[in-house]
């Protein structure tokens, strides 16, 4: 096991070195900071962005929007998922809504959000719309596809419904949610930033990214990409920590 982890880590390091090499090579080949910036100019931009007194406000607001949207999606997905698993009426009512949310173009949602909401809340709504269907279906499937053999066993042993919910259904939902948590959190953050780029709230990573575009400051865009990737990585680690605390993976 340890051997595999070491192998994975070394492969990951090789992959990162490869990306940097390609970056250096391409920037030298293109030799145009506006089209493809060098590592040096990107790092200079990164330092400038971090030194900006508004930097932490920008990060704070984007993360806050992302978290608020995500937690709201999660809460609603759990609530609607449970209710849909109980009520056939609600299940059938939700099916076309989820289908619509899944297939409607992202850009259309962004534009509608910009029309309907003020620029502070539009990014939250955009993130919510993208993540809610995934979380809802995860919750619903966790309930519907729970191992029937185990439920039969519990019923035959006359285990109280409350214990069946607490010890079988809830852990099954949590386990399945943990499988999609990293990806959905990442999608949510990306969509919030996309929403910010278009709605231009006072503080937000997206607003600043849009500024870099207006000034054709490509190193600045690259620097922001590095910052966003770092935030995603931190999110991932925090999630892993929470999963460890809840012992979700202990049995695997």
């Amino acid at each position, binding site marked *: 096991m340890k051997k595999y982890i070491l192998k994975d880590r070394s492969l990951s390091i090789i992959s990162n070195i490869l990306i940097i090499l390609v970056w250096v090579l391409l920037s030298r080949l293109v030799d145009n900071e506006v089209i493809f910036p060098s590592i040096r100019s990107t790092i200079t931009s990164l330092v400038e962005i971090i030194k900006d007194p508004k930097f932490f406000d920008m990060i704070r607001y984007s993360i806050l929007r992302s978290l608020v949207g995500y937690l709201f999606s999660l809460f609603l997905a759990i609530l609607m998922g449970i209710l849909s698993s109980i009520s056939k009426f609600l299940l059938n009512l939700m099916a076309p809504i989820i289908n619509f949310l899944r297939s409607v173009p992202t850009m259309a949602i962004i534009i509608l959000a910009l029309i309907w909401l003020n620029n502070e809340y539009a990014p939250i709504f955009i993130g919510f719309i993208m993540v809610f269907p995934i979380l809802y279906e995860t919750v619903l499937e966790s309930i519907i596809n729970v191992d029937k*053999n185990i439920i039969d066993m519990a019923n035959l042993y006359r285990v109280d419904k409350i214990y069946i919910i607490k010890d079988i259904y809830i852990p099954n939902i949590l386990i399945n949610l943990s499988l999609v948590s990293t990806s959905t959190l990442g999608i949510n953050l990306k969509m919030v930033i996309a929403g910010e780029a278009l709605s231009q709230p006072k503080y937000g990573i997206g607003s600043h990214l849009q500024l870099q575009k207006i000034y054709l400051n490509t190193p600045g865009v690259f620097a922001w990409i590095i910052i966003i990737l770092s935030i995603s990585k931190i999110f991932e680690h925090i999630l892993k920590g929470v999963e460890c605390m809840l012992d979700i993976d202990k049995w695997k």
Partner: protein
Amino acid sequence: MKYKVKNIVKYYGQLKVLDNISIDFAENKTTCILGPSGCGKTTLLNIIAGIIKPDSGKLVGFDGEDISFVFQEDRLIPWKNVRDNINFVLKGKMDRRKIESTVDKYLELVDLQEYKYYYPKNLSGGMRQRISILRAFAYPSNFLIMDEPFKSLDINNKQIVIQFFKKLRIAEKRTCILVTHDIEEALDLGDKIVIFSGRPARVKKVMENTYNLDRDEDNKRKLKMLIEKELIGG
């Protein structure tokens, strides 16, 4: 006889599955129901367990009775360790302290204390089935239903799990029904053997398993031949 089924008839649509089944289950003995695969043995168990209703006939002694089960699959909850899997069926039946002492008592009885905190994933198929049997014995009931519990095990594990069951059976008094299609299994474990015909299932023969008393291999061979004759007879 405390437990019995009388004149049970069951149809699935137009298909008659059970035809006038009557069996007496001797208290604290193991009754083996032996019959070809798919003849309706599990249907009878489901009727006894109260999962499905018979079209006619009646059950005596099972009303309100807590029943333990061992299935073909172990049916352990993957995210719970051995202790918590056994705990799970005991919840609401006794207080927390009693649950802990019951689990410890049974794990000790079969020398499996070291596996107390193991998760099912880390146990072999045979060990998981042993835990499933242990769960059935730890559950406070007088009646134990086993539906082909050794079917999915390889030959080595099967012998180990059968010995494990025998050990618990000696330590604990239970009225058991063991459903199987394996004659050796029935002769090895049953006090009484009930032979079912093919569909619709009827009771073809009820015999006392004298091999269980004398452990005489000649007797076993004779009984085996007799059972085979009955089963081949259709």
